[in-house]
């Protein structure tokens, strides 16, 4: 939710794994990982749109479900929004 309101400087593509449902992030080599730190980071805008298109192709190929872009801090490689941090790390409880 919050991610939408934050300026998309650097973005990663995230989705849920088709079989297990776990939150996954797209690596530069096109594989998907549970570790957000390994995700491909690109500047928002055109590069972001291209990353999303690649992720959507994985959705179409039934590897992942409903990919979206999320804002990530390029230094810490942590998602900016609490929701995405919880997705990346698991429940806080």
């Amino acid at each position, binding site marked *: 939710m919050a991610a939408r309101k934050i300026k998309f400087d650097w973005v990663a593509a995230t989705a849920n794994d088709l079989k*297990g449902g776990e939150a996954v992030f797209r690596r530069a080599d096109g594989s998907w990982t549970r570790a957000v730190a390994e995700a491909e980071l690109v500047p928002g805008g055109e590069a972001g749109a291209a990353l999303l298109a690649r992720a959507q192709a994985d959705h179409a190929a039934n590897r992942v479900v409903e990919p979206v872009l999320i804002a990530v801090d390029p230094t810490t490689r942590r998602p900016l929004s609490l929701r995405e941090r919880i997705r990346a790390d698991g429940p806080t409880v």
Partner: protein
Amino acid sequence: MYRYDQFDRSFVAARVAEFRDQVQRRLSGELTEDQFKPLRLMNGVYLQLHAYMLRIAIPYGVLSGRQLRKLAHIGRVYDRSSGHFTTRQNLQFNWVRLADIPDILSELAEVEMHAIQTSGNCIRNVTADHFAGAAADETVDPRPYAELLRQWSSLHPEFTFLPRKFKLAVTGAAVDRAAIQVHDIGLEVKRNERGEIGFAVYVGGGQGRTPMIAKKLRDFLPERDLLAYCEAILRVYNLEGRRDNKYKARIKILVHEKGLEEIAASVEAEFAARPVATANLGEAEIARIAAYFAPPKFASLPARSSVLDAAQAKDSALQRFVARNVSAHKAPGYGVVTVSLKPIGGIPGDATSDQMDALADIAERWSFDELRVSHAQNIVLPHVRLDDLPQVHAALAAAGLATPNDGLVTDIIACPGLDYCALANARSIPVAQEISQRFADLDRQNAIGELKLKISGCINACGHHHVGHIGILGVDRQGEEFYQITLGGAEGADCAIGELVGPGFAADKITDAVETLVETYLKLRRDPGERFLDAYRRVGLGPFQEALYADA
């Protein structure tokens, strides 16, 4: 309890086989997500933040030991050895894999359970008073009617694509533990002066973003007309309910926009037009279903148990438990035991597989093999002999299930919130945990008395915050979790929607705010018998606002 007949068995088996095939086709890529999503939702499968979630229907909250043991087993094999009981008397598994779900559904079918109609715009699991068939204050056992409604609404071809979801609740006691006035249809089973059975029928209640208290359509609908009348309501809604705007699609909006008179006229016209012979409930059918819910063979016992009295005199933990978690039973010498799933600092509504097994054992041994799930996310052992309470208490304590806080400030309802739920704006569980820890002291809790605190992580209100004496709603304020407080909500016969007290609180301030409210109440209450809700109704928001925002 109700047992599946051949028809129930074959339709559930057919649905499992059908869904197994659909999952297979999804995993092989034959079905796209767009094609699959409505199919999985019809079978109770959601995709949440971390995993698929499977919501299992527990019809009107009634479980046998065998069924609960199966849920424990599923938790162990397919989830993380636990399950989450919800405010709709259902159970959710938060960590299941799509590929495993057909096997889970097969296992459930073995114990006459399923996940059909636990999602989607259809008639959802019918809920009922969790003390049904047991409570001393009950007029009529609501379970046979809940079961009739379950059968009628299961796969009802006309009501598979309603404008929005539709929830029914039934109570058989005037105090209303089933929160019928915040349901799409709420039914109170009662008797008239002649001793005949009928229903007060309420329509158009609900929570969510536009909370509404239901309006009464009929004060005494004859028993035989139950299904025909509900069908008439559903028909009017199906035809006239809004389909253009998801937020205005529930029947409460239709009732609100048209007004009671017009809705009543439409429903009565539809009802009058029914083909009488087929739509009436026959006496034989009612009796056939009611027979499944015949009371167990209670022993004839004195109302007081000297065994229990003696044990309580020696054991203060038992004494606290009995005082708080045991309610009056209709049969002398028995009690209704509420097993709190709200240990201090725990996750409201969660039970481990081991705890479920323990509860199944306890129910089989000491409660005629019956258990109930309450909408307050607790478990009920409906028929326990007072003489057996010391042993039951010891067995519960051994399983970590003897928290004596039924109805107290730490008996918090909380939805999964942002820790699990894809729709959430803020976390609910950590807020519940912190408040629970703050008020951990039992003497303090008992001094405060009955206080229903309910937390939702978004405006969908699964945590029932609108009807909490203190309600907490999580919102997202520019990327930060914020919590709004409402006061004075109530869910029973004196149903009320809570009022917003003022600006919200940051996550690290919300527990302090609750404490301020409680301290304010303690200072202004007339005597310890005046509950938080009563005091609020007497004094209104003012003193609470002053206390909360004094420094602002």
